[in-house]
């Protein structure tokens, strides 16, 4: 992998992978929902949507088709620390991909009509998320676990902000954060590094840097007691979640906590783009045995994601039909107390390490996934953190895992939330057969 920085501050990471005639380009910006001030929650994500709507040199009606003619796919996402855009296509599309990303960085249009039509698309996305009680609980739990840090609000934003934000809010935000000195361009695939770099220089070299974007400096104060949250809404199923404040990706306790998570719920990969597609190996994991094998829950999962600042380690369970939430919670706390008291065994450490090692291999099976990982880690800390991960995992000890359990699983560091379904007063569905209707 070659890392270069252009004169305007754009960081460029290029890795040649000649396994398939493909190339993947990702352009990352250090801006996410943690950079949003009250009243503008959701602006990072909305800006991401606007950046697919045409630029000075890509007319609105020609956005579609540029990458498709190379059989490619494109997309983007926004989360708490980052916003990113990608294209993966046959390697001869490289120049077009770089052209699109350079246009996106500097020349998006933000036509007022497009801003308005996207407002309703995003509200529809938010409502779709609310349809899922598990996702709704997650959002409310996060907002309860943080009282000061902007990680507290959901990336999609709060509805009233989405209803009131203006085109100027969006455009101003875009101009502040979409500058080369706040971005990382990643290219992975069947490319020649020198040639690719020349193309990058040609497309991006003339884009002017901007002032260093202002950051919110809030640090979440230490939590001093357990917080609880009960949501009662019509539904059919009970969901429970426990969130602990957790170390950031660069913290020495991050990898030991990753090992603990593998012991408790099975190892996930660390690829936000692809890992969720493959559930963890967890049949022998402690919480699976304590909750699922005992019939208290139909599923259990853990989530520890690499973040720039301390975020959350969240455990989630779906209670089996008829099991009260707190019965699931008590069984979960029993296991967490035990790991906090006694730590993990050498055999568990060995198993957690093999799982994590396998997941790192599985998560790097395509140019798209490799490029994602380089850019993701560069955006939250540095790409070196990603390349050093295997060694850090291999070096983890039972003592470190025990110390992480002791530090993280304190009852005063947790927020417990559950969704309690209220009976649905259902209207009867109606079936009608019509020859035609308006």
């Amino acid at each position, binding site marked *: 992998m070659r890392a270069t920085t252009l004169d305007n501050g754009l960081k460029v990471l290029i890795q040649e992978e000649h396994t398939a005639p493909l190339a993947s380009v990702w352009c990352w910006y250090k801006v996410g929902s943690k950079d949003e001030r009250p009243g503008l929650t959701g602006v990072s994500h909305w800006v991401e949507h606007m950046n697919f709507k045409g630029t000075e040199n890509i007319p609105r009606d020609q956005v*579609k088709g540029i990458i498709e003619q190379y059989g490619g796919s494109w997309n983007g996402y926004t989360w708490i620390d980052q916003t990113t855009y990608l294209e993966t296509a046959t390697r001869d599309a490289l120049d077009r991909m770089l052209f699109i990303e350079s246009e996106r960085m500097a020349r998006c249009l933000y036509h007022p009509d497009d801003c308005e039509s996207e407002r309703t698309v995003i509200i529809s996305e938010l409502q779709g998320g609310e349809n899922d009680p598990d996702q709704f609980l997650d959002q409310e739990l996060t907002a309860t676990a943080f009282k000061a840090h902007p990680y507290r609000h959901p990336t999609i934003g709060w509805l009233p902000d989405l209803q009131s934000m203006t085109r100027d809010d969006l455009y101003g935000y875009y101009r502040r954060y979409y500058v080369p000195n706040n971005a990382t361009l990643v290219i992975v695939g069947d490319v020649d590094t020198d040639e690719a770099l020349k193309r990058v220089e040609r497309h991006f070299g003339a884009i002017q840097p901007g002032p260093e974007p202002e950051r919110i400096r809030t640090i979440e104060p230490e939590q001093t007691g357990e917080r609880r949250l009960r949501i009662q809404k019509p539904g059919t199923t009970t969901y429970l979640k426990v969130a602990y404040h957790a170390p950031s990706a660069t913290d020495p306790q991050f990898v030991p906590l990753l090992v603990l998570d593998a012991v408790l719920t099975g190892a996930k990969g660390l690829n936000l783009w692809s890992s969720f597609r493959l559930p963890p190996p967890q*049949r022998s994991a402690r919480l699976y045995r304590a909750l699922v094998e005992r019939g208290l829950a139909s599923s259990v999962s853990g989530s520890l994601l690499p973040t720039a600042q301390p975020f959350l380690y969240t455990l989630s369970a779906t209670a089996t039909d008829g099991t009260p939430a707190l019965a699931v919670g008590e069984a979960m706390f029993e296991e967490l107390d035990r790991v906090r008291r006694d730590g993990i065994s050498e055999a568990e450490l060995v*198993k957690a390490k093999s799982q*994590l090692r396998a997941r790192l291999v599985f998560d790097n099976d395509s140019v798209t996934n490799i490029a994602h990982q380089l850019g993701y880690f560069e955006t939250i800390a540095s790409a070196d953190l990603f390349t050093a991960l295997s060694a850090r995992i291999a070096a983890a000890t039972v003592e470190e895992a025990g110390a992480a359990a002791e530090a993280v699983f304190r009852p005063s560091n947790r927020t417990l939330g559950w969704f309690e379904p209220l009976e649905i007063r259902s209207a009867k569905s109606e079936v009608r057969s019509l020859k035609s209707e308006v």
Partner: protein
Amino acid sequence: MRPTVSDKPQTSDSRFPQRGLNPQRTVLDNGVTLLVKQTTTTPAVAINLAMRAGSACDPAGAEGTTWLLSRVIDRGTANRSAAEIAEELDSRGITLNITVTRHLFSLVCTCLAEDFEPVLSLLGDIVMSPVLPEPEIATRKGEVVTAIRQDEDNPAVRASETLMALLYPDGHPYGRRTKGSIEIVEALTRADLQRQHAARFAPGELTAVLVGDVDRTRAKEMAARVFGGWRTPPPSSTPLPPVRPATVRRRVVIPMMNKSQADIAYGFTTITRRDPDYYAFWLMNNVFGQYALGGRLGDNIRERQGMAYYVSSALDANVAEGPLVVRAGVSPANVDRAVASIDEEVTSLFAGGATQKELDDSRRYLIGSIPRALETNAAIANFLQTEEFFELGLDYDARLPDLLGAVTLDEVNAAARRALDPDRATVVIAGPYEDKQGG
């Protein structure tokens, strides 16, 4: 200066000649089909075992039997306890994914290359000799019942399942719920699951696809060692009832007033996968509801009207005439407008057809996307299973560009006229919406 946005892509590449996947196919004496493809992209192997024993084989009145079997099959064998299986998988970082579709019961996983032999042997044991222990059945039933309860509160699932039940009525296997109902699941016994396994699992029904960093010969020998001695009689055939296309328009509303957004499922029955018009239907559907962000539907409903975060259509041509389904999630206030817009796009394609440019764009996209679709071991394995199941031929990946290339605009438009007709559409709306049209 305006850079051009329509450079012609170059498709020839001397370093990656169009030699295709070239999998090695072998049929063992007992009828097990093996497909092996060696790759060296990652030090891993994708194992994909598919048994022709999907939910379409559920006994009448006992839908959900195959699904429950899929939840229990890997919880103990004649040679290993559930805990031993768990340990074997977990210690190697393997997630065994067991899925049930209408026609296939599949065990799929990826393992490190160094673990290939023990893992294949374990999977063989699970497929051939499950013991289905009573306590495991009881625990997994609890999980299935919970999952059914979750589905009952999920507008997207309710809309899709109701649509399928309407398109495939009278107990047609495509119209049944794969998980079954709570009542049926609770009544299922160990004997029911054993009977289902004995009746449907047989060597002649199994295709084992192995893709990854494993020597072809070694993979074949290993598979022969695992499955070669398996002898069971072939299952009886399970003919599918005929599919009758709708003759009138139907509309069902499932009010779910506890929800924020309504899900629309709107569809038709179409053709079988073996129908010669399949490629015309594929291209037609790409223009209609796939290309870029949802084809014509996406342009209208998401891009121009800003009504939905997602809208697209999916074509699932299958053994029987599968469905073409439009799905959209919209705000309750926009349901009527969204359905009217889907009708508008259906009518427009039905009556006016696609343009040559649309066809060319979709075709170029689908052909160009083949290398991306075949990049990972798991994706190749899945592709080879489809190839085998529908008897598409071992050179299918190499022939695919020509198959798509040969489709004419007339054929695409004929497919639109055959599949799409607003007067025969079945429309299901599930969400915080009540019918105001006087039904």
